[in-house]
């Protein structure tokens, strides 16, 4: 489907917002506005934005610990996201989930997960539920390359395959688990090479080409919605930072890091694409400013939000 000018610019703004949030995490932690662990997706923005652009608002996503980008791309609620990261009552999860457990099922976010591959069976279960109930909503399950080695992941993909469930597995292959490179953790060269083992279709694409991601997903979704079988879509990308805010990523070779950050930045690439499509410097700079402003506005909002009352600690254990 042809994207309008507004939509194309919106994707640019969203990529910038995601980049800004995850770049600013370190500052938030330094200022004790945010605590604990956080896993930034800087450099991987094109996957989140390209995939979510192709979805309907009532489709579901499930994500992992590196899920700020996916969550923001699906729910478009920067204020709610920041309020949650800052532990406030008005966050997605009323401050009880935090960075690794962002969830907002009402807007189709089944949640982030602190267990690698923990959310994959849940995503499959949601797809089962949709097919069982005859509801036309599909599920996108975001996962990383390292999750592809977890037992639960294999079980879940197999279950989805055997039942032709309406689910797309989007594997962001950012070349590293934590510090162990993907090449040391699996014998196959590409994640998608494993798809035939489940009897499903596998594709490997450039995960830093946001429009390419969008077009591929859009094309595959029709068959997935029709329950013709899940697809394993491997998106090649790169994690600019360390595994988490506590990790400098020193194990990454300098030249590799340089190439990906300087020559294969998904945002720079998309900016060039937009220029080629005739967007003016004013429009692009305006969008950049709007993205930066929206972050500051959301942060100010989040900082003004109340913390949850202490009694909330014991609430919502049971329904």
């Amino acid at each position, binding site marked *: 489907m042809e994207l309008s000018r507004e939509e194309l610019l919106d994707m640019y703004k969203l990529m910038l917002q995601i980049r800004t949030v995850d770049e600013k995490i370190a500052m938030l932690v330094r200022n004790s506005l945010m605590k604990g662990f956080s896993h930034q997706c800087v450099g991987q923005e094109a996957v989140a934005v390209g995939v979510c652009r192709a979805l309907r608002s009532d489709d579901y996503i499930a994500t992992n610990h590196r899920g700020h980008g996916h969550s923001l791309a699906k729910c478009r609620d920067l204020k709610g996201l920041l309020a949650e990261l800052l532990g406030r009552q008005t966050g997605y999860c009323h401050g009880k989930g935090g960075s690794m457990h962002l969830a907002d*099922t009402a807007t189709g976010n089944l949640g982030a997960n602190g267990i690698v591959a923990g959310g*994959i069976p849940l995503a499959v279960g949601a797809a089962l539920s949709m097919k069982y109930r005859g509801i036309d909503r599909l599920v996108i399950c975001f996962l990383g390359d390292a999750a592809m080695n977890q037992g639960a992941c294999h079980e*879940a993909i197999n279950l989805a395959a055997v039942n032709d469930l309406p689910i797309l597995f989007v594997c962001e292959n950012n070349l590293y688990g934590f510090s162990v490179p993907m090449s040391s953790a699996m014998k196959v060269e590409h994640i998608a090479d494993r798809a035939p083992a489940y009897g499903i279709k596998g594709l490997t694409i450039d995960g830093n080409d946001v429009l390419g991601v969008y077009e591929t997903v859009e094309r595959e979704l029709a068959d997935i919605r029709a329950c013709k079988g899940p697809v394993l879509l491997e998106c090649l990308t790169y994690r600019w930072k360390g595994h988490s805010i506590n990790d400098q990523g020193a194990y990454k070779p300098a030249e590799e890091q340089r190439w990906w950050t300087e020559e294969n930045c998904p945002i720079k690439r998309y900016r060039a694409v937009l220029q080629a499509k005739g967007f003016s410097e004013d429009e692009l700079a305006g969008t950049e400013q709007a993205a930066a402003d929206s972050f500051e506005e959301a942060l100010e909002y989040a900082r003004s939000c109340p913390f949850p009352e202490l009694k909330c600690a014991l609430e919502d254990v049971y329904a």
Partner: protein
Amino acid sequence: MKEAIREALDQEMARDESVMLLGEDIAFYGGCFQVTQGLFEKYGAKRVMDTPISEAGFVGACVGAAITGLRPVAELMFMDFATVCMDPIVNQAAKSRYMSGGANKVPMVLRLPNGGGMSGAEHHSQSLETWFAHMPGLYVACPSNPYDAKGLMIASIRNDNPVMFCEHKLLYGTTGEVPEEAYEEPLGRARIAREGRDATVVATQMMVHKALRVAEKLAEEGISVEVVDPRTISPLDMDAIVTSVKKTHRAVVAHEAYKFCGFGAEIASTIMSEAFDYLDAPVIRVGAKFAPIPYNWDLEKEIIPQDADIEKAVRESLYR
């Protein structure tokens, strides 16, 4: 009891389209213990779904399905296999509601055949319900008879929380009066299995039957034993237990789970703190001895608590 559970599943499936079953060999095979026999023929493959051998996968799928509108009832072939899917149970099902700030609910039931005494040996005889009781967000049901099994199963399916439904394998073949119509027995309400005056025995599942036999025997000596069956260990009806102990002044807690760190320790400790001044003797716990369940049937009886162990404990509490 297995028919009672089947009837509960059948009646709930008939009433509510969103109830569906998953598990290994539960469809045309009817389940390893034949609990789901006939349901596949009645409801079809969509609602009675055979899964590959992949507990982490399908139990996790139950969580996702429950969050998005279904009410799945999954069967693990043996409670021992829960170790293979602890993450979906403990980190996902138990926590999803809380982590989402109350937005999600996980209305699922996980059926777990547990217990020893049939030479199942180490991997087919365990009673791990303590682990699940020790996890906020989960409920744990432990019926001891067919009537409670049906009522608790219906209540568990209708409950919006994840329920670990423990089915002692030696109880599947037991019989009892079960109303034909659907009915609920509330989670968190104990039942007085036998009234008495001299000592309280709190017992679950098979231990209820052992305690009742002991009570019969001791009645001949003029010792009147009250047997309290909590029926669910989470939520746990401590009010009923404490009320009983305040009446009898002596307490024995008996379960098939290991005595060391078993849920009986929770009950004993709470009796002490709530009814200290009413006790005429320390609370005595009866539980499995601390070793894996061995294959040899005599060795197995050494580990799993027997009638004699309950009798000894009751006598000890009475200093008789």
